[in-house]
């Protein structure tokens, strides 16, 4: 299947889920219409974490197998994850301002998201600062592994410190749960954005593969 065709399918799917989120799912009682942003916010956060998890897997795989493919996957997942986390960091304050009365608070999940973004920004910066492809792949992979290990530590340190973010409604234990129409909208949005995630990562992966072969060809031309 061509990727433009896949993109077209995803475009329709997102339009449908957007419609469902706004017109099919009921308006939340206490927050009102601003709660609609959650459909995008939470789904993007979920996609970002999947992307960073993939990056960690690719980093580990690179260190042990030294296949260039794992390196390409690592950089693609990190870049796309950073894009998703930016959406999370922008939509979060838009919701928080009317509901909490402030744009930002240094709560566990907010701070974790921010620090996670910073860590992967450093990961991408580090990659741009090492010329030699093998070295770049190895050292950025090692940094990626250390950075990912930091994630639970950041989370728990801030959680013990202070926390204000709403408790998880989905999978949040007894008393939590969603209205069925909301749940359908959430699940579809999750599905659609996971599709976008896969599409973007595979496009970026192909780009990285092309870049690597260009680099190889250039080097071959220089040798001759």
């Amino acid at each position, binding site marked *: 299947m061509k990727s433009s065709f896949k993109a077209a399918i995803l475009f329709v799917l997102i339009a449908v889920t957007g419609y469902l989120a706004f017109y099919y799912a009921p308006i939340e009682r206490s927050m009102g219409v601003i709660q609609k942003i959650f459909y995008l916010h939470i789904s993007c956060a979920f996609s970002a974490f999947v992307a960073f998890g993939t990056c960690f897997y690719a980093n580990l795989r690179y260190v042990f197998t030294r296949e260039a493919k794992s390196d390409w996957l690592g950089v693609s997942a990190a870049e796309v994850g950073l894009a998703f986390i930016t959406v999370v960091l922008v939509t979060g304050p838009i919701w928080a301002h009317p509901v909490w009365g402030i744009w930002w608070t240094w709560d566990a999940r907010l701070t974790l998201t921010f620090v996670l973004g910073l860590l992967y920004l450093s990961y991408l910066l580090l990659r741009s600062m090492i010329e030699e492809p093998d070295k770049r792949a190895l050292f950025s992979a090692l940094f990626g592994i250390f950075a990912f290990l930091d994630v639970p530590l950041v989370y728990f340190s*801030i959680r013990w410190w202070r926390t204000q973010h709403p408790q998880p409604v989905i999978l949040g234990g007894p008393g939590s749960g969603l209205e069925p129409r909301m749940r359908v909208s959430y699940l579809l949005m999750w599905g659609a954005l996971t599709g976008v995630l896969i599409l973007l990562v595979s496009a970026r992966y192909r780009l990285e593969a092309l870049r690597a072969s260009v680099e190889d060809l250039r080097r071959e031309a220089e040798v001759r």
Partner: protein
Amino acid sequence: MAVLADTTVLLGKELRTEFRSRELLTTTVVFILVVVVLFSFTFDPSAGESRRFGPGLLWLSFLFAASLMLQPCFLREQNNDTLSALRLSVRDPFSIFLAKLSANTLFLLLTEVLMLPVFAILYNVHILGVFLQLVLVLFLGSLGVAIPGTAFSAISAQARMRELMLPLLLLPLLTPVLIASTEATRALLDANPVLRADWLGFLAGFDVVFLTALWLFGEYLLEE
């Protein structure tokens, strides 16, 4: 046990190199002094205010100082390619890291203990009764800075703009250390000082996580 024997020899070498010139120690002490003095202009350092903001600025200055101090750790070995010699001379490459991070922890701890009385005088806080407990917090915190710091010093030594890269890689990762050590220090500087075992345990946990990671992945960090 071979690791420990090698580490002792290498630690001796690290300490000798530093104590011949004392370059790192003097510059770090002066750097922390400058930062601590400059911070005092940003708020009114009365006893109450100092108790609130003092621990944070103290740890921030330690973190910034460490990110500069750890810079030459592996860079120094590049000049005459002594890293290859080191690699050949030890049975387990982990002992290179163990020696370097012990030396770095020691240097950090030494500068911090030197700066503590200066900080206490400038900011009107009482440290005499809790000095030993403070040293314990300083030790666990410095270890937490030195373990990923030593690892990343090996990474940044491979990159361009390495003087900027190390702080960029290290500082976001140290968020948990900053929170835990600041909170533990604040509790000790309080009017009714308490030793916060929970934060100390957290710091110890951080140290163990990254020491294990370094033990598992250290040998890859030394690849050329």
